[in-house]
């Protein structure tokens, strides 16, 4: 399912004296099955944009295309449920959305709201819990008896059980320890590959964007100021600085090495593995 934003502007309290624009003429295109990262400073409008992807917010101006459907400013939106089923959102600290007596019921909540039968929902829950790396036994526990990290996985399973085509992630690793962070990010990358999920990652982590994304959009003061492949985006640290963003640590380190060697490496490296390879090669060539 392709997602396309056309000239999207959004104002909070639109039509009142307190009207305040949070987005200005945002253009964005996220083709099906890609991994797209949206980076920006706190307050850059990235969380506002995220809520447009499944109709939680309606644009004040412009059009949001979600697959075949569109949500257009000024027009009454038709049934939003089919859109919300296809576009799952994992909010920041998603464990705060758990409420049911058991983990099983909580995971089934989403799918059943979208009219999936009980048997089917339960089947999905059993699959989902394994996919997020938890044993099936937790299904019968109260979600509030689990550790923070486990709760987050349950919440993620709850979104996955809706069988979305697109998954939107809002700072999915906030507050986790390093191992937890890596596990969650790897999990989403695996899902992206295996289920061919279109993945939209909203983050302030340059590292994660560099490591996982095919495309990156930079948000700044409510505008989408830059879109491109990670290597393009990170080749220009001056422009990024203008938007109060830093290039990823790995790219910064590459620059130091290039200064040391006295010539640029053949490409901008996005993972540690890649950089080690390039450095080794550059040293051999000497």
């Amino acid at each position, binding site marked *: 399912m392709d997602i396309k934003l056309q000239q999207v502007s959004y104002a909070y309290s639109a039509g009142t004296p307190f009207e305040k624009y949070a987005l200005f003429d945002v253009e964005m295109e996220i083709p099906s099955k890609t991994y797209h990262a949206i980076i920006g*400073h*706190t307050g850059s409008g990235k969380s506002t944009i995220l809520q447009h992807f499944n109709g939680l917010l309606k644009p004040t101006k412009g059009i949001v295309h979600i697959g075949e459907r569109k949500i257009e400013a000024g027009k009454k939106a038709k049934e939003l449920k089919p859109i919300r089923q296809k576009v799952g959102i994992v909010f920041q600290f998603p464990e705060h959305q758990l409420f049911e007596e058991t983990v099983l019921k909580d995971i089934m909540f989403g799918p059943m709201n979208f009219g999936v039968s009980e048997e089917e929902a339960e089947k999905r829950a059993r699959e989902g819990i394994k996919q997020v790396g938890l044993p099936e036994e937790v299904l019968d526990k109260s979600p509030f008896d689990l*550790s*923070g*990290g486990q709760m987050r996985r349950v919440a993620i399973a709850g979104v996955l059980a809706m069988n979305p085509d697109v998954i939107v992630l809002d700072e999915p690793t*906030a*507050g986790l*320890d*390093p*191992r*937890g962070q890596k596990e969650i990010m790897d999990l989403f990358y695996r899902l992206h590959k295996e289920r061919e999920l279109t993945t939209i990652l909203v983050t*302030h*982590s340059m590292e994660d964007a560099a490591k996982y994304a095919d495309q990156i959009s930079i948000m700044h003061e409510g505008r989408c100021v830059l879109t491109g492949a990670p290597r393009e985006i990170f080749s220009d640290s001056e422009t990024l600085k203008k938007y*109060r963003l*830093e290039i990823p*640590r790995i790219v910064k*380190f590459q620059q*130091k*090495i290039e200064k*040391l060697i006295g010539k640029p490496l053949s490409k901008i490296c996005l993972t*540690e*593995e890649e*950089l*080690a*390879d390039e*450095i*080794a090669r550059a*040293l051999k060539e000497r």
Partner: protein
Amino acid sequence: MTEILSFHNVSFSYTPDKPDARKAVQNVSFSINEGEWIAIVGHNGSGKSTMVKMVCGLLFPQEGEIRVMQIILNEETLWDIRSKIGMVFQNPDNQFVGATVQDDVAFALENNGVPFEEMVERVSSSLKKVKMYEFLNHEPHHLSGGQKQRVAIAGALAMHPKLLILDEATSMLDPQGREEVLQTVLELRKEIGLTVLSITHDVEEALLADRVIFMNQGKKYAEGSPEEIFALGDKLTEFGLELPFAMRMTELLQAKGVHLSGNNLTEEELVNDLWTSNFSK
């Protein structure tokens, strides 16, 4: 050197009636001297948060004793000791008591009966120290996470603490907020020689410390300078911690056959190592 805090064979269990169960903290001893920065690292469940709770008297050890400024921590000395310890917790929202920044900084002062004129003076001077003075009248929900944590630090400073404890104080912040808070702590150490105990799972934060205590399963697994601790390498990753970036790069490069002489904790060291091992011949 004055001792600020020490643990002497401290143990604690949340289920003391089950002697077989693993204790949350088991036979831990260590001490901090004035002016030091100690980091306690360990993954979730390693016992580090239980240790913090014991330092500020929210839990009492079942075995062993804790001394703060050589005074044994117990129910009689508790409030006196608390007035000498400043603490910054994980969630910036859930420790902000006052209606505005200045009210919050004054909270501990009010509790300890500091007279009004002195309060005003201390509030403004500690806010200046963390560079939040111009936010005096701001309400908490208009501040960023990093700013709130700096206000929390100011609240602690106002009491002229002997020890500042950072209990995963940066783990919920964005990179910018984390930077802000760590910078503030670094500056304060330079300025007033503050003693710091930071509990963290952020390796880069641990690198800033003079000494690192590595906790695993309730026991002190190792203690030493950051160099010594991170030299443990795979042992750390096995217990759920990351290695510093420079160390990871060093390992990868060595695996690709690049000549490097040793463990590099920081990027500078790695760059220098690369230079001396490969260029300056």
